[in-house]
């Protein structure tokens, strides 16, 4: 079984998000980058499914050379090889097109992503790759088992879950529950240095979206503190002042 795992290079979760150039660019000064946490879940499951000689895991990233340390981290966790499509990731549409172009003649049985990247929160790439390749896609999955040619998947729905099966090739975006992220061990870190990391050029594609400006949420006023023994006052405020209950 050949699995392709798509990874994003994203700011560490503790990053304070700021912008420069009149709020048109993300301020990368001092930002630490990590493998997108959901993509780590996808990667962990891919490794579990191929362990013991049952298959191989390739990771793919669309980005510039500065992303290589993040890609090496994925190799250290346990991917067999990696590919970087050498282009700044403009938007999900662009990224999905590049991944689909790379994957279309490579015979991957399964393509996995994280449920969303924690920077643009899109959850677009998986379903777009599915559409570009004209194969099924399942978004926001919580469980993935593969038996021969058939995968059994649980996906999240409002207030519950849906269990479904898919036969043949498919794409899925993984959420918590699919697997526990793996921490690279020393042997993994050593071997990651010599695992193959191919660099391929991007294909041209028309622009469909463009971020024109960023905004940060308006700061809230100061908190109104209510004495612990006057909970009825809180209820009154929520009812008459905030008007939410």
């Amino acid at each position: 079984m050949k699995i392709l795992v798509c990874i994003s290079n994203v700011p560490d979760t503790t990053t304070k998000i700021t912008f420069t150039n009149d709020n048109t660019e993300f301020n990368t000064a001092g930002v630490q980058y990590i493998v997108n946490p959901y993509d780590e879940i996808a990667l962990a499951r891919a490794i579990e499914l191929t362990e013991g000689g049952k298959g191989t895991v390739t990771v793919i990233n669309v980005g510039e050379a500065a992303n290589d340390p993040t890609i090496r981290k994925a190799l250290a966790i346990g991917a067999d090889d990696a590919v970087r499509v050498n282009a700044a990731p403009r938007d999900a549409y662009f990224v999905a097109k590049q991944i689909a172009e790379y994957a279309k003649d490579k015979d991957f049985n399964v393509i996995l992503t994280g449920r969303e990247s924690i920077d643009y929160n899109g959850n677009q790439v998986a379903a777009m790759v599915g559409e570009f390749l004209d194969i099924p896609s399942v978004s926001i999955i919580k469980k993935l088992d593969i038996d021969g040619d058939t995968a059994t998947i649980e996906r999240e729905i409002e207030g519950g879950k849906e269990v479904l099966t898919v036969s043949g090739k498919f794409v899925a975006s993984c959420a918590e529950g699919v697997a526990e992220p793996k921490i690279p061990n020393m042997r993994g870190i050593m071997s990651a240095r010599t695992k193959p990391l191919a660099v391929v050029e991007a294909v041209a594609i028309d622009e469909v979206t463009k971020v024109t400006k960023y905004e940060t949420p308006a700061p809230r006023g100061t908190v109104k503190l209510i004495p612990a023994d006057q909970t009825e006052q809180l209820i009154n405020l929520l009812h008459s002042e905030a008007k939410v209950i």
Partner: protein
Amino acid sequence: MSVLVYVEQAEGKFKKSVFEAVSYAKAIADQQATSLTAISIGDVAESELKELGKYGAAKVLNVSADQLKSFVNQAYASVIAAAAEKEGAAIVVLSNSFSGKGLAPRIAVKLKAGLADGAVELPSTDGKFAVKKTAFSGKAFAITELTSANKVIALNPNAFGVKENATDAVIENFSADIKQSDLGTVIKDIVRATDKVSLPDAELVVSAGRGLKGPENWGMIEELAGLLGAATACSKPVSDADWRPHSEHVGQTGIAISPNLYIAIGISGAIQHLAGVSSSKVIVVINKDPEAPFFKVADYGIVGDAFEVVPKLIEALKAHKG
């Protein structure tokens, strides 16, 4: 030319988030000086389809083919894209629900359209079609211009509100060719906790963290949520410890929510947690540590032990409800 809104049904009914998407799409149709068409797929009674008129849908395309009775995003995307072409709709709107998230990107590729998902406001009308959407897990917004001719927008729940705009909706049957290869996923089972409010589109949310000390103490959280008609949620350490299911984890690596009221009990308010809840309209924090960072972003706070405050809050709420 018109605006097309996909109205997702669950067991033949439309939820509030669907009426919200219709209200939002109607406002866009007004901006564009055109009419609004809705498309429904699956078994929905005519009386329920008529409801869509209340929020401004002038026409409803009803797709009831047997093979489309349950959700298959590939086939649904084909039908919606075909409807957009037939209606000459350059703008397609849907809810940013779990199914919507699997559907919108496929529609966007079919229509070669830019997609703004997680939209929180109407598009700008200053010549650029730019949509404000959430980014960096609630830490920021990205004003995203859709530069393609066709555009797809997935609206975040609770971002726009339901707005009545009564029209008499005309209902038409619609069908499109479905390829066998579009039916690759087969639903085997659907499990819904019917007694619970669904978290992503809940208006009120009661959430608790490590301060609760153990899963056995969630009874009072459930009771408070039940009295309010609220959904329950939790912080990451709580779901990591399996005290509560992952589906309740809100925060940067869980789900982002924007309810009208978020009550955080025994949650300190780490930056990753705040990212997922900061767009809540009103935040109440109950924590025994007066220095908890959550108080800095709260509207109302009680410094006190959850095990004393929450039972009193339940009593006060019961008294309030009479």
